[in-house]
């Protein structure tokens, strides 16, 4: 865990109002793993007061990329950073995806901005593993495919790809998925993750998910980010420290 002040290199606007922030942070890029996150202080003032957690989206040499859209004060300030301005980064934090292991194809399931951690994930995947992506959104505006390969898309309103949820789309492709030795890696809104949990249990797929939570510290001292664990009834797991990536079986969604 480090605290670094890193200069912004570039702010890239993708479609759908998605922003990619390219930041020079060699200390982070050389150590962070896909699915880990950073807790970012967007301003030295007390407004906003707390850091903001972001997944590492991608890495290019000494640079890291963050992907987000403008939700509130923190992301608004981040989006306005100019080249040379620094951001204060705390990280790498938490446990990332277990990309090693006994499977042939990584199946990425992403809902909306849940796509954020996967460009780096794809890049970091061992050479001997294939990857395919299922990307869902409410509508075509909500579909983010940046940095992904072999993509199938679903939208709730049918404005793009399969009409329905991304879990519906997975079900449509069930035969295909069953043919291969797959492991599912997912990130997205809670209802999606809930449905996915059921889907993976029924179909006996290995599955890791990255979840979100309100956070204050991001590194385990505030106890602010509990998630119910299926293993220990008398204790919560912490999203920031025990996660944000969990085996889908280990937590109650």
């Amino acid at each position, binding site marked *: 865990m480090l*605290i670094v002040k890193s200069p912004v290199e570039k702010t890239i606007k993708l479609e759908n109002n998605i922003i990619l922030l390219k930041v020079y942070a060699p200390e982070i890029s050389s150590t962070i793993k896909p699915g880990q996150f950073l807790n970012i202080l967007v301003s030295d003032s007390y407004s906003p007061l707390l850091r903001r957690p972001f997944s590492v989206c991608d890495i290019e040499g000494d640079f890291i990329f963050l992907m987000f859209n403008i939700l509130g004060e923190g992301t608004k300030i981040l989006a306005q950073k100019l080249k040379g301005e620094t951001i204060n980064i705390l990280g790498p934090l938490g446990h990332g995806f277990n990309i090693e292991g006994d499977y042939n194809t990584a199946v990425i399931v992403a809902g909306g901005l849940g796509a954020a951690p996967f460009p780096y994930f794809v890049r970091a995947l061992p050479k001997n593993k294939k990857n395919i992506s299922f990307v869902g959104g409410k509508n075509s505006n909500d579909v983010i495919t940046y940095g992904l390969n072999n993509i199938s898309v679903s939208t709730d309103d049918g404005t793009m790809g399969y009409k329905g949820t991304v879990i519906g789309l997975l079900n449509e492709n069930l035969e295909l998925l069953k043919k291969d030795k797959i492991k599912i890696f997912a990130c997205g809104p809670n209802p999606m993750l809930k449905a996915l949990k059921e889907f993976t249990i029924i179909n006996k797929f290995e599955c890791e998910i990255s979840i979100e*939570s309100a956070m204050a510290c991001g*590194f385990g*001292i505030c106890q602010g980010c*509990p998630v119910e664990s299926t293993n220990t009834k008398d*204790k919560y797991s912490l999203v920031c420290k025990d996660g944000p990536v969990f085996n889908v079986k280990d937590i109650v969604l």
Partner: protein
Amino acid sequence: MNKVDLSVNVGSLKLRNPILLASGTVGYGNEMSEFIDLNKIGGIVTKSLSLKPRKGNPPQRVVETSAGMLNSIGLANVGVEVFLKEKIPFLKNYDVPLICNIAASSIEEYVECTKILTGEETIKAFEINVSCPNVKEGGLQFGNDLNAVGEITEKVKACTNKPVIIKLSPNVSYISEFAKVVKQEGGDAVSAINTLVGTSFNIFSKRPKLFNVTGGLSGPAIKPVALAKVLEIKRSVEIPIIGIGGIMNWKDVIEFMIVGSSAIQIGTANFINPKIADEIIKDLENYCSTNGIERISELTGSYII
């Protein structure tokens, strides 16, 4: 730069500098040790410990507010036994005064916890968190009840030789009355303040953002209130005060000392910058040295009104 004496006394408790890390904002020290040298800070106050482990409240437990945050962790902790077995060994590696914060839902539980912990030599003092619901009294806060605070002070003092610090609730009309009771009943010091009761609602769902509905407000937003409470105590009771509330930098530390604090605690600021205690200690040294302050303890209660 002249050598500056940053050491302070809080009653009989000697600290190498006035910078303590506040209960609930430092865990049991291990995560923080990745960022700061625990051997340099004034002391650590543990997360509130109860007799049995507590799971704490379901999510959501934290919400940001303007220049502050609300928390309703629900006193999640490992319990005194696991603490002694699993957390103390790590802390033994460091030369840092450990203050054990205790939370309980009955006066007996406060006493019990103190008895179990007092034998552990690593623990240098107790801080009693009275901002807890008194289960017998229908969940009313101990901290709002003068008699309860008096009785807790007396009974906890009776079962330990170590300094007993009572951490006062700010959610009362006159906090100095509580400090008086603590002094009367033999308490060694008071910590002021714990968090202010606050809430926040999601206007679309109409539900509270915190599962527990209300939570405790901390951070720079509460600093003016905390300073006023410390000053109120200082002006009416002679008892050492540990100042807490919204401290973000060395200037805030000086301000808290001027109004009457012998030492201070850093809370929320640890979440934003876990190195802050280290930085503040260096800044204080610098400030004292360039301003000819030989002993920082001179500043305590040095206000001119």
